[in-house]
């Protein structure tokens, strides 16, 4: 049989094996054949280790470009249990099913993938085409959604205070962005870097929704999780980026305790040092930046935040101020002086000096 690797594009002979395996799993038919052929026969990989090490970075980049930017979604049903991932009920390309939670999860994963691809040329969570998995109907009357490090998990809500958690596309964007952050900056989930981690999920969760609706910054509601509360709850959403601390005030859930400036920073040991509370500060800074810059929020403010998330100089333990300083530098680099001033003013508006 004629060896397929004879047709292999030039990069195949210098690709690390783990990437060849990935291409074999996810690439086009031609790429798959080439990768399998190379894996099976090309012993020169080991012999040419010195060359490979020198060229690995470039080869990796070439491969990522070669990987198709194609959604691969699978939705699972936990059936009210808490074992993950559950039974696969809708794969990529399948028609809609009767279960609305399954369809909402499928569409929400797609909207998030499309947003990152169109706005930032990002190929899924890891920028390498990672398959997107989600489990719905997790637990009994379970009122939460979370990212377990590998996939999304949605409860149905208790029906008393919370509706099903697939109902809000920005929440889906929020959860998947936790995967992006883990893949890029790796911000530790504690204290200020933890609150930044949460805020970045809110920023891009909101942008997923704004992009889907093609909204200008001034048209957006800047709410996270609108529609998740039942009519019984005194509140409009989980959080407000426009006005942190005002999203709900309810006898059972309590009052939204998010601060909007550093003056209100909450020092606590609960919730990993208040990651869901203090995220209100960088959330509001992003809102102010987007409003200062105008237009579509994902184009300038979002781009600056995205490039900062990918900035190799951003530490895993970044404070609000360190993150803010990097956004100002990146604003200057990508969009010039006016953008730099607009973003510095936004941070100043929440009590963070960047100069």
């Amino acid at each position, binding site marked *: 049989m004629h060896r397929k690797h004879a047709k292999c594009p030039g990069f195949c002979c210098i690709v690390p094996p783990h990437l060849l395996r990935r291409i074999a799993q996810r690439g086009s038919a031609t790429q798959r054949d080439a990768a399998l052929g190379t894996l099976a026969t090309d012993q020169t990989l080991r012999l040419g280790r010195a060359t490979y090490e020198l060229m690995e970075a470039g080869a990796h980049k070439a491969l990522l470009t070669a990987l198709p930017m194609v959604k691969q979604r699978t939705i699972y049903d936990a059936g009210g249990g*808490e074992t*993950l991932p559950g039974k696969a009920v809708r794969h990529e390309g399948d028609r809609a099913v009767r279960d609305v939670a399954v369809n909402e999860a499928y569409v929400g994963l797609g909207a998030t993938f499309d947003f990152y691809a169109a706005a930032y040329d990002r190929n899924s969570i890891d920028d390498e085409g990672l398959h997107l998995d989600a489990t719905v109907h997790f*637990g*009994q*009357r379970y009122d*939460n*959604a*979370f*990212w*377990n*490090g*590998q996939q999304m*998990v949605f409860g149905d809500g*208790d029906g*008393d205070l919370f509706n099903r*958690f697939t109902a809000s596309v920005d*929440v889906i964007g*929020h*959860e998947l962005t*936790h995967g992006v952050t*883990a893949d890029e900056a790796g911000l530790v*989930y504690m204290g200020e870097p933890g609150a930044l*981690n949460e805020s970045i*999920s809110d920023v891009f969760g909101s942008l997923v929704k704004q992009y889907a609706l093609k909204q200008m910054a001034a048209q957006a509601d800047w709410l*996270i*999780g609108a529609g998740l509360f039942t009519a019984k709850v005194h509140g409009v959403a*989980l*959080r407000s980026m426009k006005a942190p601390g005002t999203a709900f005030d*309810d*006898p*059972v*859930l*309590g*009052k*939204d*305790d*998010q601060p909007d400036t550093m003056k209100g920073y909450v020092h606590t040991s*609960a*919730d*990993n040092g*208040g*990651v*869901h*509370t203090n995220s209100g500060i960088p959330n509001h800074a992003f809102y102010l930046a987007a409003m200062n810059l105008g237009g579509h929020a994902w184009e300038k403010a979002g781009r600056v935040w995205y490039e900062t998330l990918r900035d190799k100089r951003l530490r895993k333990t970044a404070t609000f101020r360190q993150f803010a300083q990097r956004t100002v530098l990146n604003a200057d680099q990508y969009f010039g002086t006016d953008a730099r001033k607009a973003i510095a003013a936004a941070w100043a508006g929440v009590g963070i000096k960047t100069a």
Partner: protein
Amino acid sequence: MGRSRHQDGLIVRIALSIEGGLASFPGLRKPVTIDFDRLPAERAARLRELVARARFFSVAPPAPATAARDARSYVIEIDDGTQCRTLTFTEPIADAPLRDLVAEIRDCARSVRSG
């Protein structure tokens, strides 16, 4: 004498507070106390059975989750009259008996909160 009350299943109180999750809800962080004197007998028996099955008073404290984001943590205190233990469980909870116990306590607490 010699047998602790919990061995007889005579748990008197369970307290739960919920931290984290997708959002900060100050109301859910406040501990909710499940008083066994006020529970329907069937539900109290079910809870006692789950506490025993999960070996709540002897199980090793669960390691905190590291990769999960927006997962809830459940701080659970159980008092059987002779001993009191507090454990924190963060989702996803791998151990099935502990997972079942947390789910039942969560449901009981919901009933208490809603009056």
